[in-house]
């Protein structure tokens, strides 16, 4: 009796906008995707922008509730015999607030979306009965701010540093079957960053600090495509900085 080959998917969180959407459109040329987001309408928009939309699936879920990931994701996979071979965590939230204004609820929300949700998704995808050991690639979209400080970004910096710490531990724990890496973008023109880019004083500073100017979501999608590919076979446990030269720029003028 012929054994049915499993259909392998790449799960992209935060696929309804920004880096997640660009990544989905890029990867859809060659991969089956599970597009995750909170907003179904925007996910549907992403789906229609993808190549071969009929090959992809949608997972509508709020990552602010990471404790409910397994109850939502596992049935989605089981219902259609899907397995996830690659997981890209593009979802994230940033709240610009001085530490004295970051109450526990706010900090918890940021940590839930940026870190705990990613950890929980990995845990679920590692379970044999859910994903049959088909996972081979994990990629976290972190930030250059995981390595540096920024005023009023304490909770955000902490969440991205936690993500990269988890990345390194998982790279060691899950090798050689699964590669685990982080991409650390600099300032990217996305809807999440729109408010910042609308402030001329911030734009002026960015133009000064970024030798190659600010980035676009496609700049990160390109890097994601490479890291997930066979060309990155020997790459694991790394923070891959894609920032237009920002973090090496110590120029005074």
């Amino acid at each position, binding site marked *: 009796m012929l054994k049915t080959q499993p259909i392998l998917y790449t799960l992209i969180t935060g696929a309804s906008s920004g880096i997640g959407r660009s990544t989905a459109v890029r990867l859809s040329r060659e991969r089956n995707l599970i597009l995750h987001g909170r907003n179904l309408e925007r996910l549907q928009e992403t789906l229609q922008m993808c190549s071969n939309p009929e090959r992809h699936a949608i997972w509508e879920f709020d990552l602010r509730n990471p404790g409910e990931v397994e109850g939502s994701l596992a049935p989605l996979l089981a219902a259609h015999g899907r397995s996830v071979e690659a997981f890209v965590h593009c979802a994230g939230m940033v709240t610009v607030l*001085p530490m004295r*204004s970051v109450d526990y609820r706010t900090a918890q929300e940021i940590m839930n979306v940026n870190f705990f949700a990613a950890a929980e998704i990995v845990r679920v995808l590692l379970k044999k009965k859910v994903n049959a050991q088909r996972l081979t690639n994990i990629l976290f979209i972190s930030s250059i701010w995981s390595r540096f400080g920024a005023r009023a970004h304490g909770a955000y910096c902490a969440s991205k540093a936690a993500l990269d710490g988890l990345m390194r531990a998982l790279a060691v724990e899950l090798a050689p079957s699964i590669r685990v890496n982080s991409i650390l973008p600099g300032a990217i023109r996305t809807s999440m960053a729109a408010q910042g880019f609308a*402030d*001329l004083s911030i734009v002026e500073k960015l133009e000064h600090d970024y030798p190659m100017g600010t980035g676009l979501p496609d700049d990160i999608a390109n890097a994601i495509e490479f890291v997930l590919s066979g060309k990155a076979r020997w790459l694991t446990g790394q923070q891959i900085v894609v920032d237009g030269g920002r973090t090496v720029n110590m120029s005074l003028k």
Partner: protein
Amino acid sequence: MEEFYRKLADILEVPEVKPADVMGGFAEWDSLSILSVIAWLSSDYEIHLHASELWEISTAQNLQDLVVERRGQRR
């Protein structure tokens, strides 16, 4: 509007803020407080101000007027 001034007092860590109070007179009226105000106004009033606009504010009443004006523009 009492809630508006109560919240502003909370951010500035003072017992009370009155409409005629000059923002520059508060010890905690600095760039970090301005970020808190921006986040608060965005969350509670759905308006987005830039730091440069807030630096130009003279009194607490001016801030309230700006919030009312911007909310009116949204409708």
